[in-house]
């Protein structure tokens, strides 16, 4: 057999792993449906039930709401990454991969990229529903690309957090439960209502947690407004969370492998 160094095949390995976990997703479409249905239900609820009573300062509440809904969808989407990683590590296939001369981290990267793709799918589905509900944006190609970039960065950051949970959890429930607080984070932010109406303590938290700056940035980009300082705060949060989570996830991964 010819001797091959593992490094030169890093991308082949990742491609195979990505293909594998994408197949898993497309063979269990229910995961994508569950991930999109709750945010869509939230959107319907807030627009058609609470929307009339909420004073967001805009005519089009769907426009106001959409960024927060997208973040919620991503937060629940990544819990499936934790779940898939957890089940993988438990199974014999994980041991097979680790006794093969392939890149150590390819399996992990395969899951991370899969998370990116599947979350992109649910984001697109939710935007389509929002369009039917009256969402309109005057933004051009560049702002949309910027929105895509920020959502991708947010997904990556949370995916690495999910990887820590998936790799270190003791039970399946533990692996996916960590995302509940993440899903609720948008509620205590400017995603649904402006922070002005909140009591002081809550307001301080809401205005300084990552979701608010990300929501504000996306909202500004989609309505063709200058994003100002928010975009840098949002980027700093995403990159910061991603780096820290990446380091811990890799540490947890090495412990497992």
């Amino acid at each position, binding site marked *: *057999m010819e*001797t*091959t160094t*593992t490094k030169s*095949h890093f991308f*082949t*390995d990742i491609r*195979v792993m990505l*293909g*594998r976990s994408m*197949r*898993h997703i497309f*063979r*269990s479409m229910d995961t994508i449906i569950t991930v999109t249905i709750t945010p869509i239900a939230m959107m319907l609820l807030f627009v058609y039930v609470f929307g009339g009573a909420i004073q967001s300062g805009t005519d089009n509440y769907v426009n106001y709401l959409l960024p927060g809904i997208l973040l919620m969808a991503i937060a629940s989407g990544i819990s499936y990454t934790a779940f898939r990683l957890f089940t993988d590590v438990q*199974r*014999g*296939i994980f*041991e*097979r*991969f*680790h*006794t*093969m*001369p*392939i890149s150590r981290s390819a399996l992990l990267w395969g899951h991370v990229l899969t998370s990116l793709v599947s979350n992109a799918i649910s984001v697109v589905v939710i935007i389509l529903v929002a369009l039917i509900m009256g969402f309109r944006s005057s933004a051009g190609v560049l702002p949309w690309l910027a929105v895509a970039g920020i959502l991708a960065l947010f997904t990556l950051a949370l995916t690495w957090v999910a990887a820590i949970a998936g790799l270190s959890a003791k039970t399946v429930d533990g692996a996916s439960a960590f995302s509940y607080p993440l899903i609720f984070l948008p509620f205590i932010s400017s995603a649904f209502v402006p922070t002005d109406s909140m009591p002081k303590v809550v307001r301080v938290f809401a205005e300084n947690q990552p979701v608010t700056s990300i929501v504000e940035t996306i909202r500004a980009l989609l309505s063709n407004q200058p994003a100002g300082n928010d975009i840098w705060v949002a980027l700093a949060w995403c990159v910061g969370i991603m780096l820290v989570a990446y380091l811990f996830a890799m540490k947890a991964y090495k412990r497992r492998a």
Partner: protein
Amino acid sequence: MKKAIEVRELRKSFKDTEVLKGTNFEVKQGEIFALLGSNGAGKTTIVKILTTLLKQDGGTATVNGFDILSQPDKVRQAISLTGQFAAVDEILTGRENLIMIAKLRYLKNPREVADDLLERFGLTDAADRKMSTYSGGMRRRLDIAMSLIGRPQIIFLDEPTTGLDPEARIEVWKIVKELADSGTTVFLTTQYLEEAEQLADRIAILHEGRIIASGTLPELKKMFPTAKVEYVEKQPSLEEIFLTIVGKKEEN
């Protein structure tokens, strides 16, 4: 003859439990080596250490001439593991599983490799079914087929027939014999004495973390008092009865 595996004073503890207490043995190239021991004797721990999944606490081991601690990548290029629990992807089909491994072995024609193996292991009809629909025997056959991709020199089979019915077990035995005939070294663990007797060129008995006896079957037999001649009416074993009634050995 060249040594495929050499293990010297291997030690491993989990928390307070000392599982391996200085284990020594060697496996020659091309032979079927059976590690025999009861549950909890440390067989799986040895397999995991030799296949680079676990690191030992003490002692040394080489696989295909490479030290497992300092050159794990070289070791991984020479081996394949069929673990105690089927190392297959449940959601993929049998064919997809094989193609995936062929791609990870960087073979040029993953599809052909998969087709050949499906044919050889009598799984062509089930090729496009999800693994989760496979029976225990079929799953084990595919599992072993996956291990053969890329022609590793040494194959580790950790209790390959545990949980299989008698027919499936005999099929696995046939596969293992064919493997050894083609020159592959087979490292097998088992708790079934009969399995070791049927397959192994050499047997080592692992007990409480140490090898207490090893050698060929005749050598092991010599360690015990000379055979007595007794006249007994030979009754067919239940296994023989079962196999005669079911009447199939070759059919898949």
